[in-house]
């Protein structure tokens, strides 16, 4: 057992956990943040994607102890002031989900890819970037549409802010 401390969605948290505890289980079971899902549990599907120090990682493939002292953002940490994050809003608007199980990971992956490409993305890049996220309902079409729409909106917002 070790005491693990980290910042999750801007809040300092700690917990006494077995060293073998996966980050996803720490988030879900110790912090009650059940928005992050366990899909395949074998690093394939991406339902468990969260951001650790600003980078998308698979939280089923990382120990909570490995994330100690890091800044973690989960799907619960995206919306601010009761307003959906632009990527969340775009998934809603463009129907980028059906059953919704993969959605938290899809959205966290989308935010990460938009950040890394400085708001410039085309369809081919989005599809390549989604390689680590599996959706069995949508056929990806509306997910790609939502990511592109959010990219445009976020790029536009950045431009307004810069002016």
């Amino acid at each position, binding site marked *: 057992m070790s005491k693990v401390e980290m910042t999750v969605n801007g809040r300092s948290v700690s917990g006494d956990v077995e060293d073998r505890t996966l980050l996803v289980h720490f988030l879900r079971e110790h912090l009650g943040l059940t928005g992050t899902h366990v899909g395949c549990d074998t690093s394939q599907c991406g339902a468990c994607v969260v951001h650790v120090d600003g980078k998308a990682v698979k939280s089923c493939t990382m120990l909570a102890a490995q994330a100690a002292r890091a800044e973690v953002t989960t799907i619960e940490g995206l919306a601010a002031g009761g307003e959906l994050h632009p990527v969340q809003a775009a998934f809603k608007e463009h129907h980028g989900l059906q059953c919704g199980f993969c959605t938290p990971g899809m959205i966290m992956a989308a935010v990460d890819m938009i950040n890394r490409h400085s708001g410039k993305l085309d369809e081919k890049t989005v599809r390549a*970037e989604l390689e680590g996220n599996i959706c069995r309902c949508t056929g990806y079409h509306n997910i790609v549409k939502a990511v592109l729409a959010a990219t445009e909106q976020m790029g536009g917002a950045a431009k307004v802010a810069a002016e």
Partner: protein
Amino acid sequence: MYETSYHRAESVEEAAKKMGTAEGGKYVAGGQTLIPTMKQRLASPDALIDLRHIPDMKGISINGKDVRIGAATTHAEVASSADLDAVCPGIASLAGHIGDPHVRHMGTIGGSIANNDPAADYPAAMLALGAAIHTNKREIAAGDFFAGMFETALEEDEIITAVSFTAPEKCAYSKFPNPASRYAMAGVFVARTGDDVRVAVTGAGMDGVFRWEEAESALGSNFAASALEGLAVNEGEMLSDIHGSAEYRANLVKVMAMRAIAEAG
């Protein structure tokens, strides 16, 4: 996952010391192979010594054509380094096609090389680039480092700290990824400096990564995809599994080699 204990090291010395006192310890870098393996109970180290937070093991330095990559540098960092892409595009492109974006944020070059998975990408680059593998004890030439499937010249407590190589005039990597795992069914790294050509193959060989010497000598005098016509790797030395027969892999090796040559130009 069986029980384990976690220990974070802040320096190479501290990591080696922790390994010395731990019983049944194993180093973990990005953990993108080790953690899944532990979850399947195929590995059960009593202690994990984390190398991911050691500042001396991170970063890429380039001096002219001389490249040094810290062992704890992630695939994403290698893939996105514009300076590295300018001198050695083959390795940057290779790193950008390992796993998926999330895996690339965690996985490290040192971890990949130390594991020496027969279908991992980096071993092919190391062999074709004639890289030196630096450890906390010595320097090992890539040709002496990879010793068969999941086997390397590393001692139990030895830590890869960096890799270094001189960038070739031209290089490229081409792989046929398994559609589910993204591991190479066959991946070929081609590097050329003058008439010195090296061709290294991963994902296909029964003993892990290997150099295709017959292709190297053919390409030395004629660096063109057509130089490989009439050549073939020995099917008897290729992997055969549910993903592909030895015959299929032998053909893939040739096709990937031709594509890499065309891309290197």
